[in-house]
């Protein structure tokens, strides 16, 4: 199953225990060695900072959440369409695959300033950067899923004189859904990275912006508080995609709890 996700109540408890132990050691180390709060604040101070201004963090987190989810959603829709084109036409395959490989070999973060020039400092450049980072894994996994179809299933469809469109819709597409979800779990993290990068290079909202401002003021506790919110958000987003998978693909091998 996916990246060490806690599957059972016991597993979840174990994960929580490890996290708690880490936080406790951090807290103890800060109290014993008393480093400058400019370098490393204690977890208790970070939590206190968050509860002092939950509205501030909530507002920025919502902005980042919206650009991330928009970028992710666009990547899924666009990525699936591109993948269908890639497997349907040799010309589209050459064009799209070449384009994606070139795009993916560029350090996309370096393109972020260009998007600010083109689109300004609103949500658009953040969403665009999120799409640019997330779409590759969607297309790659979806193409793989669409192609790895049992040849006999295609033969069966042909015996019943199914059109290429029906073969795509009734066999290839559902067959590719598990692979699509593998790509989506990678893409959701990339979309978040893209949104934050977008906030770093321009704009006045989002957790990335909050981190940048706090850094300018040497307000280390704020940087950590924003990072903590970001961490929680990223984790929740990942599990949201996983929950969606369990809901939509109850038939898939990785979801079965019954025999076999």
């Amino acid at each position, binding site marked *: 199953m996916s990246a060490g996700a806690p599957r059972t109540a016991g597993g979840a408890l174990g994960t929580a225990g490890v996290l708690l132990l880490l936080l406790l050691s951090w807290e103890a180390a800060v109290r014993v060695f008393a480093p400058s709060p400019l370098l490393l604040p204690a977890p208790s101070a970070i939590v206190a900072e968050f509860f002092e201004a939950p509205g501030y963090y909530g507002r920025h987190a919502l902005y980042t959440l919206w650009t991330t989810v928009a970028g992710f959603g666009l990547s899924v829709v666009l990525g699936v369409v591109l993948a269908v084109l890639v497997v349907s036409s040799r010309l589209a395959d050459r064009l799209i695959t070449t384009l994606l490989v070139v795009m993916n070999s560029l350090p996309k973060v370096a393109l972020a300033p260009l998007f600010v020039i083109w689109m300004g400092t609103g949500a658009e450049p953040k969403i665009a950067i999120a799409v640019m980072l997330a779409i590759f894994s969607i297309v790659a996994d979806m193409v793989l899923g669409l192609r790895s179809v049992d040849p006999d299933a295609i*033969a069966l469809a042909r*015996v*019943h*004189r199914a059109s290429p469109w029906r073969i795509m819709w009734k066999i290839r597409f559902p*067959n590719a859904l598990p692979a699509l979800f593998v790509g989506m779990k990678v893409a959701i993290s990339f979309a978040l990275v893209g949104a934050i990068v977008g906030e770093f290079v321009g704009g006045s909202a989002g957790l990335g912006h909050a981190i940048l401002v706090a850094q300018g003021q040497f307000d280390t506790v704020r940087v950590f508080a924003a990072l903590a919110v970001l961490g929680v958000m990223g984790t929740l987003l990942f599990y949201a995609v996983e929950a969606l998978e369990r809901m939509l693909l109850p038939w898939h091998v990785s979801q*079965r709890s019954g025999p*076999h």
Partner: protein
Amino acid sequence: MSLEVRDGEFLSLLGPSGCGKSTLLRAMAGLDPLTEGQVLLHGAPVLAPPPGFGMVFQRDVLLDWRSVLDNVLLAAEFEGRPRRAMQPRAMGLLERFGLAAFAHRYPWELSGGMRQRAGICRALLCEPEVILMDEPFGALDAMTRDDLNGELSRIQQEGKRTVVFVTHSIPEAVFLSDRVAVMSAGPGRVVEVVDIALPRPRPLSLREAPEFGREVARLRAIFAGLGVQKA
């Protein structure tokens, strides 16, 4: 070589691995054209899959994400027939094959024999004129295989359907067939077409009868003459 499939008969293609049985069957289905020679259906060459065919594969080829009933209805969906109109017939077939209780289960909840039965229901759904079967029982255990041989024999007799059946089991070919086309490898060809003169209906107990043994021995002798050792 030349081979004629007669209307309403059960014809087996029998031979060792690599003799081209499956290739010939796929050419009959219009899936892969022959490199030499041609397939004629009612006198017209078959270049693409013709209407009125059903096919059963060695692996059942059930789609994981569809219930058993939806898998059977897939044949109708491929052909663009309305699902709703076909559903009673699909349920009837599942009942006929003892699968009614499993109609809404997923394929992975079924045994190998049940899955293959569902595959046969799917092939029968659209009332095909011809059913092509590519070693459909090859992956099943011996007992399940016997059961399915009996069921297939009954179903074929009821509908008087044309069946072309690929197998490498001599007793299976004898039990099911009106005629057996004996094939040999290197190069793949039909050596001889043998009439199986056993009465119908054929109960499973027929396989204990001396005349059944004689037919099996006759086919074994042909293979022995070709230098092929058959079990």
